[in-house]
């Protein structure tokens, strides 16, 4: 499998004024396969945002290496190539929209890359259609809802035709409707266009929808695997200050009471089914 992003023993510490440099990333080894949907989960200060910023050379490692599509991010002359390969979407949509009209904002990245106007037009239209905001192409961004703005921001990154998109808590400032819109957009992009998605989040239910879940704590990767497997390790997650999805929590609590329930019920339906099965089996046994 082709690796789009690879970190080798990545270490990072901010240099503070006092000379004391708190270690933010403490030896992260991560390989992200092209086309996958990876969620990075961790509480505040776990280093997950710092890790994200290393994926397109916004930050450079103070130790170890990061490779994007085989290129070392420390190679300054390849900076634009790295950034057009890995696009980044941030938390606050207001602070990443540059222009006063939606389509002009989406055109910003291809304009910077010196792409010819007809091609920019095509990319802008495609990107806006991909996030379902084509009808709003002539609107002013500040009149859109949070979820719509964030989708415009995603389109702005898509217009670079990146192979990978890193989203740093893209739903943190959105209402439930906006969150759902953005998450659906991300999933569709991953499934239909094959764009690699790295979703940084602290929402368990969002993380549960990825193919692969990486849990971070204190600058280290503490768990890595399919969400179903990672979430079954309830005690380990709790020990690093994270909770598990409510469905898993329910099953786990019931298990503590001696009931036989699986821990990999991530969706409401799965959980309901498991409970139903348990109840009917008990009924049969009697």
């Amino acid at each position, binding site marked *: 499998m082709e690796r789009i992003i690879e970190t080798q023993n990545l270490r990072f510490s901010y240099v503070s004024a006092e000379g004391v440099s708190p270690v933010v990333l403490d030896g992260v080894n991560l390989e992200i396969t092209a086309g996958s949907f990876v969620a990075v989960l961790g509480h505040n200060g776990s280093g997950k945002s710092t890790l994200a910023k290393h994926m397109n050379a916004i930050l450079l490692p103070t130790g170890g290496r990061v490779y994007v599509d085989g290129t070392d991010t420390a190679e300054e002359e390849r900076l634009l190539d790295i950034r057009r390969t890995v696009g980044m979407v941030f938390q606050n949509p207001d602070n990443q929209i540059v222009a*006063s009209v939606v389509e002009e904002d989406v055109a910003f990245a291809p304009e910077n890359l010196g792409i010819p106007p007809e091609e920019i037009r095509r990319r802008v239209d495609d990107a806006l259609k991909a996030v379902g905001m084509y009808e709003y192409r002539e609107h002013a961004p500040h009149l859109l809802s949070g979820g719509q703005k964030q989708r415009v921001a995603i389109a702005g990154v898509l217009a670079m035709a990146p192979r990978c998109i890193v989203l740093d808590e893209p739903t943190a400032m959105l209402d439930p409707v906006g969150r759902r819109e953005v998450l659906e957009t991300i999933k569709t992009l991953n499934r239909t266009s094959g764009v690699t998605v790295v979703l940084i989040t602290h929402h368990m239910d969002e993380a549960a929808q990825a193919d692969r879940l990486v849990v971070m704590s204190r600058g280290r990767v503490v768990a890595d695997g399919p969400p179903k497997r990672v979430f079954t390790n309830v005690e380990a997650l709790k020990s690093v200050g994270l909770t598990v999805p409510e469905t898993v929590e329910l099953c786990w609590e019931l298990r503590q009471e001696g009931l036989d329930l699986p821990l990999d019920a991530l969706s409401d339906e799965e959980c309901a089914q498991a409970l139903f099965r348990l109840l009917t089996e008990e009924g049969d046994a009697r």
Partner: protein
Amino acid sequence: MALRDITLGQYFPGHTIIHRLDPRTKLLCTVLYIVSLFLAGGAAGYAVLFLVLAACTAVAKIRPAALLRGMRPILFIIVLTAVLNMFYTPGTVLWQWKFLRLTQEGIWTAFFMVLRVSFLISSTFLLTYTTSPLVLTDGLERLLSPLKRLHVPVHELTMIMSIALRFIPTLIEETDKIMSAQKARGADFDSGNLFQKAKALVPLLVPLFISAFRRADELAVAMECRCYHGGEGRTRLRQLRFQGADAAALVLFCALAVGVWALGRLGL
């Protein structure tokens, strides 16, 4: 809330011929119009200028109310200049009380002054209402590009301008939010004399500035993520092209300036 009235830099998307004109044409026409305003000498000149403004507003399908709303924040300045002109222009005295002397010439000067200032404001508003900030700054950048030879950072300056315009509504929204939060905790922005009012603004401005700096920082990173590296090698979604309509508009506004100047010379 008065903040909502600030329509500076607002853009009303549309597809009228005025919206479609090249931004450079619109910029030059606005400059020509403003020059004409200062060349106008009498009622006939102002009448012509008013008709041109009204025609442009109608063609661009901008509601006159929107133009008037833009004028509200500077109403005070307009009234003040009008009053000063009325009483301080020498001429035939109509009415006198102590040192106040209302003259016939003063009334005319004040009247034309009000027209001049409001036409000036309206014409610039018409420009920003019908041209998206990015296109406008793009036009400005092209117009000023000869200055690049003199090492004037034209691209950077126009980029700063377009981002400033883009963030006006965002920052207004934020100011509203901070004001509400402060009011909820008992802050009083409306009473007291001018000095007290100004003092009440300090707790508003400090958080606003802090947040503006944070925004600037985040925006810079987001722009870098989208491969922004200055003006070199940039292309544009919309290529600027002079067309027939642009030539016609420029000729018309040149004619307007000359015509108004001629009318002025004739004392009309």
